[in-house]
C-alpha cells in the first residue's frame, strides 16, 4: 500500500517553507496539568512525532529515497492547512492498519511506541480539524429545529402543531441547534407547507373569538358511553354490554375495563373546545382491588404530548382526584385508558363470558376547565380580520391581511411589496378554484410560515463584509438569542420591550435571567440542552424487549421514568441552586415509584417516592453507588445494547461528558476484536492492550467503563455476573490514577470537576450560538470555568456570566 495523491505531497513540500503557521496551544499550562482532557503541548507533540518518524520512517521516505512517492522527513507536525491534515491522515491510516513500518524492516517500533504515536497523531489531527473548521466565531443562519418551529407557530397563531407533522431534526450526534448538518429538499418544504397550512387553517376556520373567561364544565355519569352499543347484532357486543351493565357503578360513572378491547379506553370530548387553548382536566377515579399491582394506572393519551400515567394504588378503597393539563387532538378529544396487557386478554374475556367480575377503573366524574390561552397572538385572527367581511374579502383587504401577517411572522425582517403581490396571486387563484375567501388565505399564509424569514433564524450581518471584528447585537437579536436558548421560542413582548437594557444593564439581565429560569418554559432548556449534553438520544435508541426473560416488565412507563430521572435531578440542582458537581456524585438522588418498583436496590426508598413525581431522596451510605449521573440507569443504558453492557461505550461517555476528553472516532479498516465466549468481559477488553492501534485510545476509556460493570444492561445493580463470577472493578483513570470501584472512581472524577464544567461550557456555546466551540472561544471557556469555580459551580451565575460575555452579545 502506498500513500496516495503524490500531487498533493509535492504541493505540500513546496508550501511548507512559506507556511509554517504556528498554532498556539490556547490553553494555559496550569490548566493542562489539571485537566485530563488537556492537549499535549505543541512542543511535546512535535518531539514525539519527529522522533518516531525519524526512527522508523525516514530511512525509506526521505529527500533522496521516496518509497511509494512519500517523503516524511519534511512533514510539518503542526497542521496549519487541509493539505497537511490530509498527509497526516494518510500516515495515521497506514499505522492503524499496521501496513507500515513494513514487517521486514530491520527496526520496528514496540507496541508501546506505536500506541503512543498513534494516540498523539490522532489527537493532533482531531485538534487541527477543529481549528480548520472554525468560522471565526460566526453564528450563521440556521433553520428552526422541530421544537422551535412548533413553538414559533404556536406563539404566532396559538395553534399547536402535532410533532409528527414537522420534519424531524437530522442532527445525529450533534446538538439540534447546529446549522451545518441541516439539509433541505422539496419533500421537507412540502412537509412544512402541510404543517403550516394545518395551523393557519385551524386558526382561520376556528372562527370563534377567544373565550374571555375560562369555564368549568362537569361531566357526571357519562352514560352516553352505552348509547348505540346494544343495538349491534353481534353476540359478543351484546354480552359485553350486558356485562358492563351488570356492574352497578355504570350508573354513577364510567368504567374502564382491563384488557377487554371495547372498554379499555374512554374518549373525553373537551367541552367548549378551542384549538388555541389548553385545558385543566380533573377526574375522580378509583381502581378495583383485583387489578394487578403493576397495572393500577390510568393512562392519559394525548396526540400532542407524551402519555401520562396516574397511579391508582392509593385509590382502591376511596376514589381520588387526579388533575392534568390537556391538549386535545384534531377531533377535540383526549383518551383515558387502562394499561393494557395482551397476555391477560384471554382470561378476562373468559371471565366476562361467564359473567364473573373483571378488574376495572371507575371514573365518578370529570371536570374540564378552560380554555387557557398560550402565546402572544391569540387575538391574531381578530386583528387580521378586523373590519373585514369574512364572506367577501376584497383584494385590498387580503393584501392588508397578508402584509400584516408577514410583518409579524418575519420577526423584524422587512417584507417586500413584491412578495405580497405574489401572495395575492395565490389568493386569487385559490378563490378561482371555488374556495371560500377564508380558505383561500390558507395557502398564501402558509407560504409566509415556510419562507426563510420565518423558517430560519438569522441576524443582520451587514457588518460582516466590511470588518472582521464582531459587532454588538441589536437589542431584539439579544432578546431572540436568550429566548431561543432558554425557552425555545421567539422572544416575548416583555423581552423585546426590554431593549438595550438586556445588553448594558447587568442587574436587569440578571433579574431577567432569574425570571426566565423560574418560568415553566425553562423546562425546554433542561430537556433540550441537558438532554442532548447527556446524549439521551442514545438512550432512546436502546431497544429493550419487555417480554424477554432478561428484561421483564421494562414497560413504557418505566422507560419514561428512567429517562426522566437525570433531567429531574438536574432540575432539582438548578432549583436549589446547588453545585453542578453533584452530577458527578451526590448524597441524594431523585426517584419515582416506577423506579423504586423496578430496581430492587431502590426498594427501600419506595415509601418516600411518589408515583407521579420525582422526589428527592437521601441515599443510604451503602447505596452511595446510586449517587450522581453514573448511578442512574439512563446513563448506564446509554452504554448498553439493551441486553449486554458495553464498558467501552460507558467509558467513552465518561470521557466525553465528564472529562471533556472525547475519544477520537474509531479508525477505519482496523478489524474488530471477535468476542471469545470463554473470556470474561474484562479479559476481552484486555486484548486491546496487545494491539497498539486499539490501546492508544482504549487505555483511556475501558477501565472506567469496566468499573460500572456492577450495573447490568438495564442499570440493575449486581454484585456478580449471572454465571456467578465476580466483577472486578478496579482500574486506572486516563491520567493513571488508580481507583478501586465505581464509587472510588467518582471521587477521582471529582478531582477533575473543572473538566466537567468545561464540557458543559463548551456544550453551552454550541447549543446557544448554533456553532462549534472554536479555538478562539478558549479564553472565554477558561474564564467561565474559573468563574464557575469561584461561584460554587452553580448554573445561574454561569449562565449570567455567559450571556453577558462579549461572545454572546456580539455577532
Amino acid at each position: 500500500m502506498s500513500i496516495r495523491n503524490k500531487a498533493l505531497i509535492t504541493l505540500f513540500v513546496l508550501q511548507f517553507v512559506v507556511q509554517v503557521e504556528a498554532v498556539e496551544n490556547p490553553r494555559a499550562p496550569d490548566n493542562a496539568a489539571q485537566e485530563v482532557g488537556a492537549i499535549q503541548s505543541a512542543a511535546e507533540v512535535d518531539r514525539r512525532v519527529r522522533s518516531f518518524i525519524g526512527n522508523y520512517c525516514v530511512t525509506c521516505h526521505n529527500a533522496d529515497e521516496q518509497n511509494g512517492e512519500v517523503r516524511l522527513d519534511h512533514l510539518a507536525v503542526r497542521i496549519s492547512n487541509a493539505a497537511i491534515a490530509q498527509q497526516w491522515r494518510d500516515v495515521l491510516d497506514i499505522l492503524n492498519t499496521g501496513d507500515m513500518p513494513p514487517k521486514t524492516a530491520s527496526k520496528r517500533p514496540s507496541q508501546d511506541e506505536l500506541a503512543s504515536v498513534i494516540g498523539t497523531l490522532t489527537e493532533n489531527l482531531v485538534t487541527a480539524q477543529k481549528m480548520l473548521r472554525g468560522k471565526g466565531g460566526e453564528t450563521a443562519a440556521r433553520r428552526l429545529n422541530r421544537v422551535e418551529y412548533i413553538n414559533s407557530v404556536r406563539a404566532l397563531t396559538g395553534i399547536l402543531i402535532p410533532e409528527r407533522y414537522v420534519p424531524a431534526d437530522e442532527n445525529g450526534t450533534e446538538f439540534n441547534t447546529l446549522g451545518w448538518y441541516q439539509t433541505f429538499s422539496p419533500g421537507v418544504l412540502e412537509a412544512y407547507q402541510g404543517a403550516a397550512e394545518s395551523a393557519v387553517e385551524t386558526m382561520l376556520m376556528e372562527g370563534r373569538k377567544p373565550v374571555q373567561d375560562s369555564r368549568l364544565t362537569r361531566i357526571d355519569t357519562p352514560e352516553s358511553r352505552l348509547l348505540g352499543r346494544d343495538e349491534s347484532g353481534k353476540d359478543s357486543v351484546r354480552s359485553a354490554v350486558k356485562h358492563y351493565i351488570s356492574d352497578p357503578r355504570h350508573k354513577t360513572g364510567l368504567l374502564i375495563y382491563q384488557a377487554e378491547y371495547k372498554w379499555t379506553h374512554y374518549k373525553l370530548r373537551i367541552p367548549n373546545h378551542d384549538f388555541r387553548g389548553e385545558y385543566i382536566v380533573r377526574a375522580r377515579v378509583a381502581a378495583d382491588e383485583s387489578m394487578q399491582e403493576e397495572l393500577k394506572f390510568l393512562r392519559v393519551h394525548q396526540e400532542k404530548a407524551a402519555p401520562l400515567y396516574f397511579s391508582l394504588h392509593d385509590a382502591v378503597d376511596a376514589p381520588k382526584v387526579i388533575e392534568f393539563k390537556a391538549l386535545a387532538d384534531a377531533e377535540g378529544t383526549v383518551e383515558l385508558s387502562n394499561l393494557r396487557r395482551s397476555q391477560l386478554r384471554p382470561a378476562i374475556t373468559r371471565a366476562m363470558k361467564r359473567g364473573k367480575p373483571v378488574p376495572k377503573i371507575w371514573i365518578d366524574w370529570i371536570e374540564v376547565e378552560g380554555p387557557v390561552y398560550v402565546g402572544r397572538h391569540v387575538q391574531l385572527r381578530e386583528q387580521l380580520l378586523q373590519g373585514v367581511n369574512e364572506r367577501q374579502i376584497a383584494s385590498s383587504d387580503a393584501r392588508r391581511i397578508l402584509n400584516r401577517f408577514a410583518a409579524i411572522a418575519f420577526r423584524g425582517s422587512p417584507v417586500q411589496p413584491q412578495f405580497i403581490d405574489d401572495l395575492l396571486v395565490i389568493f386569487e387563484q385559490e378563490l378561482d378554484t371555488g374556495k371560500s375567501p377564508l380558505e383561500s388565505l390558507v395557502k398564501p399564509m402558509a407560504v409566509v410560515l415556510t419562507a426563510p424569514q420565518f423558517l430560519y433564524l438569522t441576524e443582520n450581518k451587514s457588518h460582516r463584509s466590511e470588518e472582521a471584528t464582531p459587532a454588538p447585537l441589536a437589542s431584539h437579536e439579544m432578546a431572540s438569542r436568550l429566548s431561543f436558548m432558554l425557552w425555545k421560542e421567539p422572544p416575548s413582548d416583555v423581552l423585546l420591550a426590554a431593549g438595550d437594557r438586556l445588553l448594558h444593564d447587568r442587574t436587569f439581565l440578571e433579574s431577567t435571567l432569574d425570571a426566565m429560569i423560574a418560568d415553566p418554559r425553562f423546562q425546554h432548556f433542561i430537556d433540550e440542552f441537558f438532554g442532548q449534553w447527556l446524549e439521551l438520544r442514545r438512550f432512546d435508541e436502546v431497544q429493550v424487549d419487555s417480554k424477554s426473560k432478561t428484561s421483564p416488565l421494562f414497560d413504557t412507563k418505566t422507560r419514561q421514568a428512567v429517562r426522566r430521572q437525570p433531567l429531574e435531578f438536574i432540575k432539582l440542582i438548578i432549583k436549589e441552586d446547588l453545585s453542578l458537581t453533584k452530577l458527578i456524585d451526590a448524597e441524594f438522588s431523585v426517584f419515582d415509584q416506577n423506579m423504586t418498583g423496578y430496581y430492587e436496590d431502590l426498594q427501600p426508598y419506595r415509601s418516600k417516592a411518589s408515583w407521579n413525581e420525582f422526589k428527592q431522596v437521601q441515599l443510604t451510605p451503602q447505596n452511595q453507588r446510586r449517587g450522581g449521573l453514573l448511578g442512574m440507569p439512563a446513563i448506564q443504558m446509554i452504554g448498553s445494547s439493551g441486553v449486554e453492557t458495553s464498558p467501552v461505550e460507558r467509558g467513552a461517555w465518561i470521557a466525553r461528558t465528564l472529562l471533556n476528553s472525547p475519544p477520537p472516532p474509531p479508525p477505519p479498516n482496523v478489524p474488530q476484536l471477535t468476542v471469545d465466549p470463554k473470556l470474561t468481559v474484562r479479559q476481552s477488553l484486555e486484548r486491546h492492550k496487545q494491539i497498539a492501534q486499539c490501546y492508544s485510545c482504549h487505555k483511556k476509556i475501558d477501565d472506567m467503563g469496566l468499573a460500572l460493570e456492577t450495573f447490568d444492561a438495564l442499570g440493575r445493580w449486581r454484585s456478580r455476573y449471572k454465571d456467578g463470577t465476580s466483577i472486578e472493578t478496579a482500574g486506572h483513570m486516563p491520567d493513571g490514577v488508580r481507583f478501586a470501584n465505581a464509587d472510588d472512581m467518582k471521587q477521582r472524577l471529582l478531582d477533575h470537576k473543572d473538566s466537567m464544567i468545561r464540557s458543559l461550557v463548551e456544550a453551552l456555546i454550541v447549543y446557544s450560538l448554533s456553532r462549534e466551540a472554536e479555538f478562539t472561544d478558549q479564553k472565554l471557556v477558561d474564564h467561565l470555568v474559573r468563574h464557575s469555580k469561584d461561584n460554587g459551580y452553580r448554573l445561574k451565575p454561569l449562565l449570567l456570566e455567559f450571556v453577558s460575555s462579549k461572545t454572546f452579545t456580539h455577532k
Partner: protein
Amino acid sequence: MILNRRHFLASSTSLLALPPLQVAASETGKAPQRVVFLGFGFGFTEDFYATTFGSDYELTPSMESLQKHKQDFTVISNLWHKNARGAHGGTVVYLTGADAHGPTARNTVSCDQVAARYMGNETRYASIQVTTREKGGGHGGGSSLSWHENGTSMSGVAEPFRMYNMLFGGQGTPYEQRLAELQNEKSVLDAYVGNISSLNRNASKLDRERLDHYFQSLREVEQRIAREKLWARKPQPRVDYKLPAAELDGVQEITAMYDLILLAMQTDLSRVITYRQPIVSLLQALDIKYSAHAISHYQKGEDLKKAMIVRERKQTELFASFIDRLKATKDVDGSRLFDNCLVSYGSNLRAGHMLKNVPALVTGNASSKLRHGRHVKMPQETPLCNLWLTLLQTLNLPVKQFGDSNGVLSDLFA
C-alpha cells in the same frame, strides 16, 4: 448562490436544458437501456463474502438465494473509496467518491446523475431517487443516494404509496385541470422565489451557504413543474398494481419499492434509478431486537452475529427476487427487462469498520460487454469509482472519468 429572482430563473432554466421530446422509445421498437443503483449502510458479515474466485467460485450460504442467477451477475472484490475516511460516514459518498471529510469539504455529483444527463431526457422523470428516511439505518446525511452537480443532496421518495402516487397517481386528471394545478404550484413557487431577493442584503457569506439548500429545493421544484408541464398532455401509464398501504413492514416496503422500480422502468417513466434501502425497518420486520448499529458490530457476540446474518440473507433474498422479476418482466420490444438493465448492489462498508473491499455486485444484460457468472478479484484498493465509470461507459455514455477513477475495470469484460 443566487439571490435575485431573474438570476434564479435564468439559472434554473439553463439547468433544465430539456431537449425536444424525441420519438418515444416504444415507437422505435427497441427497448431503452436503464441503470439502477442499490445501496445500503453497514455492509455484511465477513461470512457473506465468497472466498473463491473466477467462474467456478462458490457462493456463501448468505448468498444462497442468488444461486439460480449465478450465471447472470458478477461479484467484484477489492474496491474502495480512498476518500471515505470515517467508518461512521454513511452512504453519503457511496455513489460520488468525494472527499467529504475535510473542513471545507462538499459532496460532488453522484454517478447516477451523470447517467441521467444522457439517459434522462426522454422520460417523464430524468431520474428517480427511491430512499428511506429512517434514523439509524447507517446512511449518514443527505436525502437519498443521489447528489447534484453542486454537491447538494437530491430529494427522494421514501414511502411506497408516495412513489406509487408519483408514478401512477394522476390517473384520470384531465389535461386542463392538471395544467391549472401546475399553474397554482408555479404561483406558490414564484412567491418563494420573489421573496428571496430581500434576503440578500443582510446575509453573510456563511448565511447564504446555509440557505443554499433551501434555494436548491426551489430550483428542484421549478424543474419538476416545468418538466411536468411538458409531459402533462401525455397521460400517466396505467398499471395493474394496487396502491401500497401506508403502513408496511420493512420486508413489504422493500418488496413494494422493487415492484415500483420495476414498473417505472417497464412503463419507461425513468431510466435512471437509485434506491437507498432501509435497514431499521427490515430488522423490525424480521423481529430482531437489536439496533442496526449494534449488529453491525457483530464480532461482539454470537446473538448479534446471528441477527446480522438473518438480515443479510433476507436482504439478499429480496434482491434475488428482484432479479427474478426483472427476468420475468417483458420490455416494450418483447425482450426481458433484465436484458436492458444494469443493476448495481452494494454498501459503503464491508463489515464492522472496514471501508476497504466493499461489497459490489453487478447484474443485468444492458451491456453485452460484461461477462457475468464470475467473482472478479481486482488489485487491492481499486477505486470503486472505476466500477461506476465502467458502468457508465458500458452504457455508451461519453464519460471519460468519474470521481477518483483511474481507469475502467476491463476485467469485467469478456
